[in-house]
């Protein structure tokens, strides 16, 4: 297939609880971004159940994406998929869908690193060129910036991810994950009503942070029942967000870059946005936040990163398209970043 600016790439995202399909043109227009989220009846994500959801919903989400973009499968010139990191059964389901599509349509396949896709969609949508990125979601808490061919990890969590910390606490507090209202959003609403700052552990180690002690302390106080829930939500957010903001500021001062990008599911939180905006201003940097529809896991970011990779000579032959559960972002060459 001859490729032009209008060639289409379809991206499949399935690292965790969301199954997403996005369609992007080679010149960076997002034509579709469909998804279906798996909502556990109770507790966190059960990988096998989530994978079952993805398999059941795949054809529906694909059809939605084609309808949204107003294109047909035959119009596609490239298939991209989230190759890792993530939950094995979920990744495998998405990879299977992607391989099948690529083989059936006889178009190239390209595996994309999920974390890098979060950065790239943020850059595409905000116009950021070379930012210090804070990527915060249910599975990741990373401060990264580009240097010599790769994104380098400057800081990260030593244990659990920020979104995970907030979600577990929210579930302990009896909040429910509803469609269109993730647990983090419910927690944010409650926190807005917080008045008293309760002292909790604040753990910054170099450029890294640790959140598990904070979660345990907040959960213990919750179980004792002596604090207002709103105050606890507020205090948890203030402590956790201050920690990630502190390490992001350190990376910003260290790299002397002049842009900050906030991306990933937790990027939708307004309080976190305001904190990062504050450090950006402090260092005369421009603050960018990924738009809400591209904050959580989505297929559009995979499609777009697939375009970037493919147009810089990268393809993933089927025999090398096995999923990589622990594929760290600093292991990936990003020849498209200058």
């Amino acid at each position, binding site marked *: 297939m001859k490729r032009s600016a209008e060639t289409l790439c379809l991206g499949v995202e399935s690292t965790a609880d969301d199954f997403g399909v996005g369609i992007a043109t080679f010149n960076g227009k997002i034509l579709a971004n469909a998804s279906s989220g798996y909502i556990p009846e109770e507790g966190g994500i059960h990988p096998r159940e989530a994978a079952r959801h993805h398999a059941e919903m795949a054809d529906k989400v694909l059809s939605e994406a084609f309808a949204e973009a107003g294109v047909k499968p035959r119009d596609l010139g490239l298939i991209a998929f989230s190759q890792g990191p993530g939950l094995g059964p979920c990744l495998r389901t998405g990879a299977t869908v992607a391989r099948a599509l690529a083989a059936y349509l006889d178009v190239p396949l390209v595996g994309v690193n999920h974390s890098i896709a979060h950065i790239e969609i943020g850059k595409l949508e905000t116009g950021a060129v070379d930012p210090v990125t804070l990527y915060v979601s249910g599975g990741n808490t990373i401060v990264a910036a580009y240097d010599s061919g790769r994104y380098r990890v400057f800081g990260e969590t030593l244990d659990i991810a920020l979104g995970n910390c907030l979600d577990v606490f929210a579930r302990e507090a009896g909040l429910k994950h509803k469609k269109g209202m993730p647990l983090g959003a419910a927690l944010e609403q409650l926190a807005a009503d917080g008045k008293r700052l309760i002292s909790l552990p604040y753990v910054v180690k170099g*450029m890294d942070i640790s959140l598990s002690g904070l979660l345990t302390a907040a959960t213990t106080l919750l179980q004792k029942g002596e604090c207002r829930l709103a105050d606890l939500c507020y205090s948890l957010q203030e402590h956790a967000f201050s920690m990630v903001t502190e390490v992001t500021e350190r990376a910003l001062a260290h790299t002397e870059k002049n842009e900050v990008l906030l991306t990933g599911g937790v990027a939708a939180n307004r309080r976190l946005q305001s904190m990062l905006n504050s450090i950006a201003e402090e260092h005369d940097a421009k603050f960018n936040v990924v738009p809400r529809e591209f904050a959580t896991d989505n297929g559009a970011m995979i499609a777009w990163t697939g375009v970037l990779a493919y147009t810089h000579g990268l393809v993933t032959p089927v025999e090398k398209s096995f999923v990589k559960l622990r594929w760290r972002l600093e292991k990936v060459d990003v020849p498209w970043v200058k």
Partner: protein
Amino acid sequence: MGEVAQGKLLKKGAEASLYLADWHGRKVVIKARLPKKYRPAELDAKIRSYRTAHEPQLMHEAKKAGVPTPMIFLVDMKYASITMEFVEGKQVKQVLGSASEKEKQELCVRIGELIGKMHQHGVIHGDLTTSNMILSAEGKIFLVDFGLGEKNTELEARGVDLHLMKRALQSTHYQFAEACFEHVIRGYCAVVGAEDAKNVLEKIKEIERRGRYVAERKQA
């Protein structure tokens, strides 16, 4: 900012601003932890005063262990500022890149020895990066920036400290991070002994396995 504004701004870091000033005829650095607008005032005050009070104590302890640190002249809790000796020299970060293979090796071994001495004495630095090490004009390596440090002798704390050193090398000196860290460990080992160093190395592996998406986990 009262007294702090007296000096010339040397560096605006993330955590503190450094000012070069004259203090009774001495060239000094004033490290001021300025308030951070992004966090609640109570939390901000707590963090700044805690770190300002602890940093000089740890620097003093490190010195007792034989690790060069700048001399402290004044701690001002009101402004969360520390007045200390200005060390003439260069950050190891600036030196390492252009150093020869042999110089790199020598520097890293010495850094490892210093960390070893400090750990033996129960001091955890908390932010071991090559920008927090100054190679002075007379060739000594000074450690600075103990704000995230603590007094701790546990294997866990020592492991995290060295893990952070490794991570800092990887993000800033990725071209030769691995070799450098090996030399650091050699120096460390020479001070604390092979048995103890082995335990710390095991601990570092365990800490790395706890992280997100690390390949080593597979074998666990």
